[in-house]
């Protein structure tokens, strides 16, 4: 292993460079930050670089969550920003002034290279074959499940967290193997880094203690485990820590006093103490003294929990359960090599293999419950698949074959002399192997011989290389089709095959930046909060950091209620502009009308009497926007804002919504309290200005009616006026 160490490392690095290059090509158009969360991270990093670490730590952000503000320094995971800030400063120290934006854009690809390296190291610890590590690193480099988070511009916590995850696991395995306090301390260090970088850290905080616990339960306690675990130090880890101390103590006693009865006594003591402490933990949790599980985490165990209690978590598309095509889409043939690799781990089943087995089961469970956690599954799938594939390659790609004659001779001998020497030897071998049968797998009981014919070697080599090539094609296809187009800029194909760029988001954010006062407050659904903050630099009511459910529900209520109810809410929150996303013209399905039900649900969770999901469905339980839409739906602010003036695009009575594929009512909605301020080229973003109170003291409905020239109706205006006056 030692002399071959340099060679695969070099190959690993070149492979890494190639992959880095591949990702750079994705930057074909412009370096731009993708998605939603990265915009906030980018903004925070800029703040960090401009104002220094200490003021970053105390940063109170009054540009978001208006009028509440957000204690940003204390509520974010600073690992990512600190990392890029450090890189920025180091580069400046080396007199290489690089724009902070470029660092942010390219951080994810750079760290994915490091991830490939860490995967190589981790796999090399698990398998004696150097090819396993290389394969794993290559898989990790191109598996779509990971590429989705590591394309340039995806400046998110996950970008560095997966590297930290894999590397922490590598260090832990290393510490466990060597029993060294040094490696344990390194594990602790990276573990701390990981905690500061990603909310998903609960995964390792529970995986490593679980591994230690399983090892103890398997009777594999060793001083190495003691040293490595006590050096590197949530809830369950504390329990296992105590258990480990106990076991360590007992083992120490046992070495001194080899009395059988004493031993039994102590073992039962340990079990009793463990049970009692678990009982206390459960009791305390039930009594509500401590709340060790956060809602997001709890929803992983009780899968129905989120839907009933926290619609805000259930509404995020990343938190949906995973259907099988998503697994295949993200992992291709690795997904069926994965169980084979886990099976191979059972062959030798050293401490580190136990780790892989536990990791595999837990990660596949989590990935099945939440699409987002596919990310934690990808490393172990790559490792296990590489184990399986490298084992096959190592077996079949050996030039020298065992001689078939030995077998023939052996058999003829056995036939001629019933008590031949060779047979007795092999019988003895059989006996020896069968006595250890319970310790090994059934499929590995016979002695290993090798592959005789070069025909079988060749066929396997051809088949495996075909699969590998197919995998590369698959990954390229998936990456270019699904994961590399930034959601801010949409690309579509025109009928003649040329590419057409739809840049409505940036157009609209630029409009906001140039045409609204610097302190304007923009209300939109929370998905767009970070983007408005980052690209338009305007204050928002809610954003993707969904820390205050009530505030989000307020926005939901404003969107889903009648204008008469919404207007006071808008006024109370100083809203100047309202932004909605509408895809009806283009057939862009991720628009606000499709997200609308979640707004209704979240609002209903807080005001169950004022907003009712049922009222948005027709009597037959359909969600419609056409003539048969319910009155509640038609009167809701969101509906009005989406379809306002939409009829003007079409000949009379021909207005069609291309997302929901329905014909709209002949007469479009009327807006009284808002006026259209901006609509982007393809109508994806529509911005409305909230009207000020009427100069003459009329309510907006009658003012609009007056301007339209229709006669003021005495009765209706009186009744409306009475309603508008209602202020909560």
């Amino acid at each position, binding site marked *: 292993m030692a002399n071959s160490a340099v060679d695969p490392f070099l190959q690993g690095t070149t492979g890494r460079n190639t992959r880095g290059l591949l990702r750079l090509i994705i930057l074909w158009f412009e370096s731009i930050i993708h998605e939603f969360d990265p915009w906030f991270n980018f903004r925070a990093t800029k703040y960090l670089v401009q104002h220094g670490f200490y003021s970053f730590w105390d940063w109170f952000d009054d540009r978001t969550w208006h009028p509440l503000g957000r204690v940003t320094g204390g509520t974010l995971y600073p690992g990512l920003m600190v990392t890029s800030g450090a890189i920025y400063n180091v580069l400046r120290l080396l007199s290489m002034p690089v724009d902070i934006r470029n660092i942010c854009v390219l951080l994810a690809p750079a760290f994915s290279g490091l991830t490939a390296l860490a995967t190589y190291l981790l796999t090399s610890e698990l398998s004696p074959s150097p090819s396993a590590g290389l394969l794993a690193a290559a898989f990790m480099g191109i598996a779509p499940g990971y590429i989705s988070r590591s394309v340039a511009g995806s400046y998110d916590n996950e970008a560095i967290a997966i590297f930290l995850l894999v590397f922490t696991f590598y260090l832990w395995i290393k510490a466990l193997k060597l029993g060294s306090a040094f490696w344990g301390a390194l594990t602790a260090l990276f573990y701390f880094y990981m905690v500061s970088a990603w909310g998903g850290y609960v995964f390792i905080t529970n995986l490593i203690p679980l591994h230690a616990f399983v090892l103890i339960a398997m009777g594999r306690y060793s001083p190495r485990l003691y040293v490595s675990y006590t050096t590197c130090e949530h809830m369950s880890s504390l329990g296992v820590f105590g258990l480990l101390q106990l076991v360590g103590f007992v083992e120490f006693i046992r070495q001194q006093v080899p009395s059988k009865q004493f031993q039994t006594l102590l073992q039962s003591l340990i079990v009793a103490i463990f049970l009692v402490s678990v009982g206390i933990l459960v009791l305390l949790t039930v009594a509500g003294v401590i709340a060790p599980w956060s809602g997001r985490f709890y929803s992983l165990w009780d899968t129905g929990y989120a839907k009933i209690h926290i619609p805000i978590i259930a509404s995020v598309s990343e938190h949906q359960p995973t259907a099988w095509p998503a697994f295949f889409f993200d992992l291709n043939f690795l997904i069926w090599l994965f169980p084979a690799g*886990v099976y*191979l781990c059972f062959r030798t089943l050293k401490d580190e293999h136990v780790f892989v087995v536990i990791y595999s089961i837990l990660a596949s469970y989590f990935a099945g419950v939440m699409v987002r956690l596919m990310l934690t599954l990808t490393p172990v799938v790559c490792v296990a698949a590489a184990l399986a594939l490298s084992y096959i390659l190592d077996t079949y790609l050996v030039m020298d074959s065992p001689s078939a004659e030995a077998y023939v001779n052996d058999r003829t001998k056995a036939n001629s002399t019933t008590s031949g020497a060779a047979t007795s030897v092999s019988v003895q071998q059989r006996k020896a192997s069968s006595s250890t049968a319970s310790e090994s797998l059934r499929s590995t009981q016979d002695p290993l011989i090798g592959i005789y014919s070069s025909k079988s070697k060749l066929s396997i080599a051809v088949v495996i290389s075909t699969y590998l090539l197919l995998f590369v094609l698959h990954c390229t296809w998936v990456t270019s089709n699904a994961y590399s187009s930034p959601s801010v800029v949409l690309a579509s194909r025109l009928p003649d095959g040329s590419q057409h760029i739809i840049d409505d988001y940036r157009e609209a954010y630029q409009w906001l930046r140039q045409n609204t006062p610097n302190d304007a407050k923009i209300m939109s659904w929370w998905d767009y909060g970070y983007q408005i903050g980052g690209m338009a630099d305007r204050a928002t009511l809610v954003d993707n950091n969904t820390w205050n459910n009530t505030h989000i529900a307020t926005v939901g209520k404003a969107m889903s209620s009648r204008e008469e109810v919404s207007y006071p809410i808008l006024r109370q929150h100083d809203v100047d502009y309202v932004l909605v996303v509408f895809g009806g013209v283009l057939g862009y399905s991720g628009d606000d009308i499709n997200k609308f039900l979640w707004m209704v649900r979240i609002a209903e969770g807080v005001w169950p009497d004022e907003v009712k999901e049922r009222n948005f469905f027709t009597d037959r339980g359909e969600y419609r926007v056409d003539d048969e839409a319910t009155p509640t739906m038609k009167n809701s602010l969101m509906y009005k804002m989406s379809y306002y003036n939409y009829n003007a695009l079409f000949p009379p009575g021909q207005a069609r919504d291309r997302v929901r594929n329905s014909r709209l009512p002949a007469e479009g909605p009327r807006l009284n309290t808002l006026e259209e301020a901006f609509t982007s080229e393809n109508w994806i973003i529509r911005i409305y200005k909230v009207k000020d109170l009427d100069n003459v003291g009329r309510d907006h409905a009658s003012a609009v009616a007056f301007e339209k020239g229709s006669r003021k109706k005495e009765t209706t205006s009186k009744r409306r006026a009475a309603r508008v006056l209602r202020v909560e």
Partner: protein
Amino acid sequence: MKFLQAFTWSLLPLAALAAKKSPKVETFEKFHQKALSSSPLKLGDREYDELTGPLRNYSVAVLFTAMEPQFGCQPCREFKPEWELLSTSWMKGDKSGESRMLFGTLDFADGKANFQKLQVASVPFILLLQPTVGPGAKPNGQPLKYEFGVNPSEADAVHGWVSRHIPPGPRPPIVRPVNYARIVAVSTIVLGLLSVLRVAWHLIVPVIQNRNLWAAISLISILMFTSGHMFNHIRRVPYVVGDGKGGVSYFAGGFSNQFGLETQIVAAMYGVLSFATISLALKVPRIADPQKQQISVWVWSAIMLGMYSFLLSTFRVKNGGYPFWLPPF
């Protein structure tokens, strides 16, 4: 509408006067006495009319249900214990009737006339009638309807709904009775299991220390999770769905959709592919006979190729634009 409102308002003082004299005042006391002994009240047409008369100084929630077996109303049967629990704990918590709240059940068998009058199309649902006179009255309030299916059918949810809509007053909490029989049963089973463990310990140890067993458990759970079992569990997808021509469609259309059987087929495909891999990696190099080895290499790689090709063709069904394929499928 406005006229009607004015009319009702003008009636109010009269109603108050009338309430003082008429025996209506005692309606609540009468029914409350009954409710204390058995709640929810089992109503017939006559009792329902009396209870829900136009002048009420109390709130009443009535569950419309159809318990008779010929209707086969599963939700009715499921909700019945919850309803009983809610009403009994309310009555027990508010013996003096301070909250002025009554619970009743109107079965289709006893209240055909009212079912017809209200043009009930589906059961179960709850009607909540708020008081029309007295403190917190809503003189022209329409009865509120609690429908199941869209709303949760737990007593706690109904409790919350009722509490929000009746005038201020005590809201006795739901007290779930301790199920002693269950505690006894569970502890008996646990003790039984413990003694079986104690007696058969020497038989069990080799089993739980068996590596093959653990390998099998791990592989099965991994296959289950990676083929989308949790999705089935959370979304409660149907096992199979008819294709409208009398046949069965095994695969759901669309990328993020699946059926129960579909995931099992996929899990089986993954299983076969993994097994072929394991055989090629571990078993084949251990076959001593060269000819046998040659044949099994070909057989296993043929199985692998065929299965993988089938998997790809299945995936093309799910994801229309997927361009890759392998022979033969």
